[in-house]
């Protein structure tokens, strides 16, 4: 142990706070170092002197009575503020907790497979060209009661084609349903964004819905996009049947226009 380390331990040594090992090491050092031994002897006198000096310098110093009254008044005022602040903080904490809980529930709902409310369209999967998903059980028919039909062949091979499928075929307004958009493209370059214009001409009115898809989508292949129907649910009370689809390009953005060809009013429950 050197003098620096020994000096740092002297206080604890005097107060009996050192461990047995530290005590032993320090005593060994003190036995061999007259300077540190003198420091230990001198320390009580130094401590006493400093303590008395400080005590004497404030001896008789008392706060004026008018100051006490001011302090009591200010303290009471601030205590009230503090208590009010605490109440506000508590209610804020409760609100934040409730909001957090709500977010957690929504998150869990999505994790469990619920439809996201935003964005309007989400990309479900992207398939390479020539592997259309319409074979087998998957049915691209857009209108109930009609025979299934494949994606319409675009007149211009360079233009993409699109089809929209409602599931289930028959539903009531409050029934959950999905709307799936099949988008086939033969482009060389990937598609950065897709704009879906949905024209609905129902018995109770005409609506246009704009749904944006943030890409990229593959240039060649079929993209399966899920159109979340919640944007429609609030305003449409009919079941809509989509048929004609039209894809056109406008300044680098592909637009898919789908128009209602038939509509059946769903009887209310």
């Amino acid at each position: 142990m050197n003098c620096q380390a020994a000096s740092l331990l002297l206080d604890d040594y005097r107060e009996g706070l050192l461990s047995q090992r530290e005590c032993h090491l320090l005593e060994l050092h003190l036995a061999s170092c007259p300077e540190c031994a003198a420091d230990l002897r001198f320390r009580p006198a130094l401590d006493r002197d400093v303590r008395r000096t400080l005590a004497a310098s404030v001896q008789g110093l008392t706060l004026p009575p008018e100051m006490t009254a001011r302090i009591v008044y200010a303290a009471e005022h601030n205590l009230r503020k503090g208590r009010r602040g605490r109440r506000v903080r508590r209610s804020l904490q409760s609100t934040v907790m409730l909001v957090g809980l709500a977010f957690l529930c929504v998150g869990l709902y999505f994790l469990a497979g619920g439809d996201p409310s935003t964005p309007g369209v989400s990309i479900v999967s992207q398939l390479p060209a020539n592997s259309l998903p319409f074979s087998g059980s998957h049915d691209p028919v857009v209108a109930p009661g009609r025979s299934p039909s494949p994606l319409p062949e675009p007149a211009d091979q360079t233009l993409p084609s699109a089809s929209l499928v409602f599931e289930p075929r028959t539903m009531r307004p409050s029934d959950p349903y999905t709307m799936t958009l099949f988008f086939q493209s033969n482009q060389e370059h990937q598609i950065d964004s897709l704009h879906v214009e949905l024209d609905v001409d129902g018995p109770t009115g005409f609506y246009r819905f704009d749904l944006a898809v943030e890409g990229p989508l593959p240039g060649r292949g079929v993209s399966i996009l899920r159109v979340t129907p919640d944007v429609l649910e609030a305003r449409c009370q009919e079941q809509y049947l989509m048929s004609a689809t039209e894809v056109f390009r406008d300044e680098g953005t592909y637009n898919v226009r789908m128009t209602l060809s038939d509509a059946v009013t769903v009887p209310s429950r």
Partner: protein
Amino acid sequence: MKLLDVKDRNGGGDALISLDTEALVLRCQRGDRLAVETLILRYQNYVYRLCFLVMRNEQDAEDMTQETFIRAFRALPRFEVREGKNFEGWLYRIAVNACRSRMRRKWYQVLPWPEPAPTIAGEPEEQPDRLLMQGEARQEMLAAIDALGEKHRLVVILRYYAGLSNEEIAEVLSIPSGTVRSRLHMARKRLKKVLKERENKAERTVSRGVAA
């Protein structure tokens, strides 16, 4: 920890005066005005003196005492009364921080120590003759403490005036206890020098007197 100047000014606080600090704090948190006053009376002079030692003038010490209690009572509803957490240490921490933030202001100028009082209260049973503190000697020691610089001075004040342990000082100043030890070590080294010089001076005076 010291408890000083407990007075009953309003006559209705006899029961409160006998309460310990934790019980008073709990009553304050419930909005008991008498408890607020009792708690302030219990600590006001101690905080005032601590602030005076740090600030070195009465006006600033008064301001900082008021500031300390304002800060403390605003935060009191959040203070948790539990074992291992003492109110005094918390109050000193607020006082020291209030003083430090005042001293850090650009316009703040550190004043010299005021003139010493003519007499010094001592503890006769503890006073060896050679260490009888005289006004001049005390002033020398104060000047030496002053010359330590803010960091070391605060540690010395908290150790020797507030009577805090190294760990408590570390908590008040938010520094590691090892740093407290090394600052105290450095401060003592310098103060020892002052004390030695004074002793030598006294010895020389005595020897001159004997020779005469």
